[in-house]
C-alpha cells in the first residue's frame, strides 16, 4: 500500500468512526427518551455517559498507526498560529537564521564546488594531474625543503609521451592576452582576447568534444607546424556571429593568419578560462615548456587502471634532478584532477567555512536566549496544557515543531540570500579563486541548507524545550504568574559568553589580516606612483619578433607620447612595479657565486624607464639611448641583486653572463615593490631584478617575454592621469594603427591587483567579524533588557527601600558585562590558536600582534558596555509606587 493510499484510508476510517459515535449517542438518547426523559435531557445524559468524545476518537484512531502524522499537522497548524501571534519574535528569529544559514549555504556552495562536486568533464575520476615531488636540502638556504610542483619542463613532457602508455597525456601552457583581427581583410577591428595554449590531444584528455571540427593534431603542435586555432563558444557567437561555415577559414591572430579547425560546445570549462586556444608548440630552451611552465594532464586509457599508470609514472626519470637537490629524493605521481584543482583553495575555503559556522553558532545562541525568555513567558500556557492531559513529549514536540517551522522559513530566505551573495561574489572575485564552473546552488547545497535548518531548530528549539520539562504544574497554575527562573538568565549568560568567545576569535583574525594588508599597502614603493598611467599591449605578434621592428615600434610610439601635451615622460618596460617579472636567471661569471645561476627577475626597459617612474639611481648610470644592440651589453640591477649575488650593494663594473653574451653592470637603482616571481615569500617583495635595455634584447628573449607578458607603456603626466588614455592610444596608432591597448592601469590599480587575494580575505573576514559583533551586541542587549522587564518589581521594591537607580542599573547591567568578560577571556585563548592557523597569511605582523591584542578587547568592551547599559536606562523610568501597587 502506498503512503498516500494509507493516509486516505486512515481519513476514511476516521469519518467512519465519527459516524459510529454519532449513532451511539443517538441510540443512547433514544433509549433515554423511551424511559421518559425530555429530548434535551436525554441528549445531555447520553453525552455524559459516553464521556470525552475526542479522547475516545483519539484512542481508537491511534491504533491505526498514523497518529504521528496527524499530530505533526496539528502541531504545525498550532505553530503557524504561534508564529503569527508573535510577529516580532518570529521575524527576529527568521531574519537571524536567514543570515546565518544564508552565509553558510553560500560558503558551502564554494566548498561543494571545490571539493565535492564532480568536475564538469566526463569520467572526471579518470583524469589526473602530473606532480613532481621533491624533498631534500635546499642548496640556496641549506634548509630542508619539500615541494610538490605541477609545472613541468620540456624534457618531462617528452618523457611522458614516450614512457606512459596506460594514460593519454596532454599539456597546457598559460593563458595570455593576444590580438585578434576578425576576418582576413585589413580594416577589421582588432580585439584583445585571452588565448590558452594547449597541446595536441588536450580536449580528448578532458573529454571535451568540439561542437565543430576537431582539436589540435600532433603536426600542428610542433615548431613550424601549420597555424591552427580552436574557438570557444562565446567568442564564436560574439565575434563570428556563430558562423556555421567557419571551419577552414583564416583569422588574423597575433599578426598572422590562423586557420580555424574547431569550435568548442557551449558551457565548456577550462582551467585557463581562455576565449580561444592555440597549439602549445613546446620547444627548448626558451619556448613553451622550456622553463618549467606547462602543466600535464593524464587520462586513463580504457581498460587501464591507476595502479598500472601509477607504476609507469613512478618509474619516470626525473630530469635534471642533480640541480633540483643534490642529496634529496624526487619522484612523479598522479593527483586526481579534482584534488589538484582544489588544492590551492582548500585551506582558505575550509577556514571560511569555519568562520561562517561561527556566525551560525552565534546566531543560534542568540535565538536560544530569545526562546528561553519566551518559554518563561509561556510557562502558564504549558502548565495548563500539561494539566489538561498533554504529555510532556507532546509539548516538547510542539515546541520543536515551532522552532522547525521558523528554521525552515529562515532557510528559504537564507537560500535567497546565498544566491545573492554568490552573484555578487562572481562580480568581485576573479575566476582563479572560484571553482571550475563557478559556485552554484545544487542539490547538495540544498541538502546542506535543509540539514542546517534541522540542526539549528534542534539547537535553539531543544534547549528551551528541556527547560519546559521542568515546569511545575501545580505552582504555575496556582500562581498564574511567570515562572521567572534565575536559572534561565544563567543559561543565557553562558550562551552570551560563548558567542562573545567566537566573536573575539573572528575579530582577532580579521584584525591580523587587516594589519597585514595595511603593512603590504604601505610598504615603501621605491618609486613615485603619483601621476603615472600604464597601458598594456600584447606584442605576441609575428610582426614584432624582429628586433628592428620591435625597437622601431617602441621608439615611434614613445616619441609620439612625449609630444602629447601634459606628458612629462614616457617609457616601456616588460613589467612595472607591483607586477611580477620574467623569471630569467643569469650566469654568475665572477664574485662569490661564480659558476652558479642567479635566480632573478628580468625586465627589458627603454632608457626613460627609471626617470619616468622616478626610481632612484644609487650608483653608476641608468640605461641610455646610446646602449645599442651593437654596443657593449649593459644592465642595471637593483640593490637586492647586488646584495644577494655579489654580497655588495654596489656591483657597478661587475659582469654576468647570459647565453653567449657577457653583460656589464653599469648602474644600481633602488628596490621597488614587486609581486615575486622567483621566491614566493610574500605577496609583495623586493627580489633581485636585472634590467636590460630593450634595444639589446635578443629575438629569443623578445619572443619569450612577449609570449608570457604584455609589456606596459608608462606615462608620467603633469595633471590627472585619467584623461590621458585617449592620447596614449592615439600616440600608439602613429606607430601601428592595428594595435589596441588591452587596458589602462593607474599604479593604485596595480597595487590593488597584486594584493587581490589579501583584499578578498580582509573583506570577507571583516564582514563576518562585524556580523558576529553585531549579533553579540544584540544578544547582550536582549539579555539585559529582558532582565530589566523580569525584575521590574524587584527593582521597584529595592528603590522604594532606598536603593539608588544607579545601583540597580549597575546590578542589572553587570550581567551582560560579566558574560562578556568571560567570553573575552576564552576568546583570547582561542585567538592564539587561530593565529597559528593564520600564520602563513601574515606578512609584517606577528601572530601575537600587540596592536590587535589591544584593539580587539577595546572594541569589544565599548560595544559590550553600550549593549549592557543602554537597556538599563529603562530602570530610571520605573515608578516604585506603581510597582508596589501591582502586587
Amino acid at each position, binding site marked *: 500500500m502506498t503512503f498516500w493510499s494509507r493516509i486516505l484510508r486512515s481519513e476514511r476510517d476516521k469519518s*467512519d*468512526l465519527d*459516524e*459510529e*459515535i454519532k*449513532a*451511539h449517542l*443517538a*441510540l*443512547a438518547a*433514544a*433509549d433515554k427518551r423511551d424511559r421518559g426523559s425530555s429530548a434535551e435531557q436525554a441528549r445531555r445524559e447520553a453525552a455524559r455517559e*459516553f*464521556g*470525552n468524545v475526542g*479522547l*475516545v476518537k483519539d*484512542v*481508537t484512531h491511534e*491504533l491505526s498507526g498514523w497518529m504521528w502524522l496527524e499530530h505533526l499537522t496539528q502541531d504545525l497548524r498550532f505553530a503557524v498560529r504561534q508564529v503569527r501571534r508573535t510577529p516580532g519574535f518570529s521575524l527576529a528569529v527568521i531574519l537571524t537564521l536567514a543570515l546565518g544559514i544564508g552565509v553558510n549555504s553560500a560558503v558551502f556552495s564554494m566548498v561543494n564546488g571545490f571539493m565535492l562536486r564532480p568536475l564538469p568533464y566526463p569520467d572526471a575520476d579518470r583524469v589526473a594531474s602530473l606532480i613532481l615531488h621533491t624533498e631534500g636540502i635546499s642548496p640556496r638556504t641549506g634548509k630542508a625543503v619539500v615541494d610538490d610542483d605541477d609545472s613541468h619542463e620540456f624534457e618531462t613532457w617528452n618523457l611522458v609521451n614516450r614512457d606512459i602508455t596506460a594514460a593519454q597525456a596532454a599539456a597546457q601552457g598559460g593563458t595570455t592576452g593576444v590580438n585578434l583581427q576578425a576576418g582576413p581583410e585589413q580594416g577589421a577591428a582588432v580585439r584583445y582576447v585571452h588565448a590558452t595554449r594547449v597541446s595536441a590531444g588536450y580536449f580528448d584528455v578532458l573529454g571535451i568534444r568540439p561542437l565543430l571540427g576537431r582539436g589540435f593534431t600532433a603536426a600542428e603542435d610542433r615548431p613550424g607546424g601549420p597555424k591552427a586555432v580552436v574557438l570557444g563558444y562565446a567568442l564564436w557567437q560574439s565575434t563570428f556571429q556563430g558562423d556555421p561555415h567557419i571551419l577552414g577559414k583564416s583569422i588574423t591572430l597575433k599578426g598572422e593568419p590562423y586557420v580555424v579547425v574547431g569550435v568548442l560546445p557551449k558551457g565548456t570549462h577550462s582551467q585557463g578560462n581562455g576565449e580561444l586556444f592555440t597549439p602549445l608548440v613546446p620547444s627548448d630552451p626558451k619556448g613553451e615548456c622550456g622553463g618549467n611552465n606547462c602543466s600535464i594532464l593524464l587520462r586513463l586509457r580504457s581498460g587501464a587502471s591507476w595502479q598500472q599508470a601509477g607504476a609507469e609514472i613512478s618509474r619516470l626519470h626525473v630530469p635534471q634532478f642533480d640541480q633540483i637537490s643534490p642529496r634529496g629524493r624526487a619522484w612523479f605521481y598522479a593527483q586526481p584532477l579534482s584534488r589538484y584543482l582544489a588544492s590551492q583553495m582548500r585551506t582558505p575555503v575550509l577556514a571560511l567555512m569555519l568562520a561562517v559556522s561561527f556566525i551560525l553558532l552565534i546566531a543560534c545562541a542568540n535565538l536560544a536566549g530569545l526562546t528561553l525568555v519566551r518559554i518563561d513567558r509561556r510557562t502558564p500556557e504549558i502548565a495548563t496544557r*500539561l*494539566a*489538561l*492531559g498533554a*504529555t*510532556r513529549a507532546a509539548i516538547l514536540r510542539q515546541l520543536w515543531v515551532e522552532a522547525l517551522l521558523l528554521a525552515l522559513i529562515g532557510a528559504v530566505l537564507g537560500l535567497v540570500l546565498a544566491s545573492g551573495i554568490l552573484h555578487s561574489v562572481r562580480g568581485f572575485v576573479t575566476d582563479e579563486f572560484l571553482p571550475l564552473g563557478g559556485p552554484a546552488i545544487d542539490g547538495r547545497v540544498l541538502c546542506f541548507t535543509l540539514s542546517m535548518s534541522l540542526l539549528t531548530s534542534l539547537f535553539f528549539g531543544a534547549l528551551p524545550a528541556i527547560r519546559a520539562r521542568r515546569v*511545575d*504544574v*501545580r505552582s504555575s*497554575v496556582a500562581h498564574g504568574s511567570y515562572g521567572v527562573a534565575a536559572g534561565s538568565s544563567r543559561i543565557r549568560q553562558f550562551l552570551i559568553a560563548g558567542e562573545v568567545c567566537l566573536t573575539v576569535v573572528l575579530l582577532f583574525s580579521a584584525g591580523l589580516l587587516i594589519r597585514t594588508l595595511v603593512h603590504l599597502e604601505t610598504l615603501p614603493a621605491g618609486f613615485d606612483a603619483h601621476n603615472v598611467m600604464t597601458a598594456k599591449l600584447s606584442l605576441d605578434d609575428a610582426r614584432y619578433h624582429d628586433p628592428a621592428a620591435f625597437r622601431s615600434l617602441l621608439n615611434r610610439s614613445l616619441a609620439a607620447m612625449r609630444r602629447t601635451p601634459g606628458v612629462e615622460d614616457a617609457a616601456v618596460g616588460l613589467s612595472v612595479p607591483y607586477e611580477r617579472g620574467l623569471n630569467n636567471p643569469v650566469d654568475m661569471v665572477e664574485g662569490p657565486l661564480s659558476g652558479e645561476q642567479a635566480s632573478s627577475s628580468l625586465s627589458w626597459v627603454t632608457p626613460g624607464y627609471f626617470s619616468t617612474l622616478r626610481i632612484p639611481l644609487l650608483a653608476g648610470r641608468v640605461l641610455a639611448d646610446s646602449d645599442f644592440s651593437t654596443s657593449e651589453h649593459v644592465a642595471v640591477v637593483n640593490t637586492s641583486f647586488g646584495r644577494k649575488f655579489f654580497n655588495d650593494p654596489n656591483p657597478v663594473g661587475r659582469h654576468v653572463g647570459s647565453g653567449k653574451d657577457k653583460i656589464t653592470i653599469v648602474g644600481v637603482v633602488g628596490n621597488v615593490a614587486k609581486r615575486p616571481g622567483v621566491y614566493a615569500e610574500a605577496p609583495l617583495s623586493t627580489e633581485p631584478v636585472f634590467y636590460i635595455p630593450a634595444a639589446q634584447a635578443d629575438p629569443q628573449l623578445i619572443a619569450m617575454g612577449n609570449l608570457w607578458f604584455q609589456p606596459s607603456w608608462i606615462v608620467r603626466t603633469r595633471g590627472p592621469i585619467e584623461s590621458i588614455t585617449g592620447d596614449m592610444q592615439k600616440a600608439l596608432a602613429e606607430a601601428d594603427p592595428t594595435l589596441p591597448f588591452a587596458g589602462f592601469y593607474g599604479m593604485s590599480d596595480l597595487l590593488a591587483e597584486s594584493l587581490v587575494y589579501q583584499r578578498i580575505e580582509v573583506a570577507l573576514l571583516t564582514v563576518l567579524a562585524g556580523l558576529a559583533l553585531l549579533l553579540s551586541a544584540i544578544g547582550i542587549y536582549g539579555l539585559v533588557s529582558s532582565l530589566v522587564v523580569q525584575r521590574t518589581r524587584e527593582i521597584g521594591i529595592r528603590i522604594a527601600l532606598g536603593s539608588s537607580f544607579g545601583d540597580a542599573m549597575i546590578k542589572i547591567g553587570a550581567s551582560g558585562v560579566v558574560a562578556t568578560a568571560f567570553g573575552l577571556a576564552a576568546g583570547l585563548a582561542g585567538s592564539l590558536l587561530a593565529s597559528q592557523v593564520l600564520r602563513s597569511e601574515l606578512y609584517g605582523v606577528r601572530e601575537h600582534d600587540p596592536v590587535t591584542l589591544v584593539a580587539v578587547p577595546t572594541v569589544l568592551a565599548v560595544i559590550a558596555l553600550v549593549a549592557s547599559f543602554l537597556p538599563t536606562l529603562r530602570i530610571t523610568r520605573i515608578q516604585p509606587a506603581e510597582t508596589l501597587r501591582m502586587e
Partner: protein
Amino acid sequence: MPTSEHQPYQNRIELLQGTLDMLILQTLQWGAQHGYGIAQALRAQSGEVLQVETGSLYPALHRMERQGWILSKWGQTEQNQRAKYYRITAEGKKQLARDRSKWEAMVAAIGNILSPTPQV
C-alpha cells in the same frame, strides 16, 4: 482530573483487554450488534455491575476487526437509526473458545488459592 502525573488512557484498555475481548465476542454470539447495543447488553447481563467505558469499547472493537475476529457492516436499527453492526467470524469463535478455556482455568486456579479445601 488535573494531574501532573500523566496516566495514559490505554492502560485501562490493557487492564481489561483479555476479558473485554471475550465478553464482546460472547455478546456477539447471539447475533450482530452495534457498539451501544454491546455496551447495554454487557451492563444488563452483568446485573448492572460491569460498566464498559466507550474509551475501551471502541478501541477494542476496531482492534478485533483488524485481527479478523469480527466484521462490521452499516445497517438500520428498529428505530430506523443508521448504526454500525458487528458480527463474529469463525476466527472470532475460535478465539472466544480459547479465551473461555483460559478464563475457566484461571478462575479454577484462583478459586483453588482462595479456598484451598477441596469441595466435595
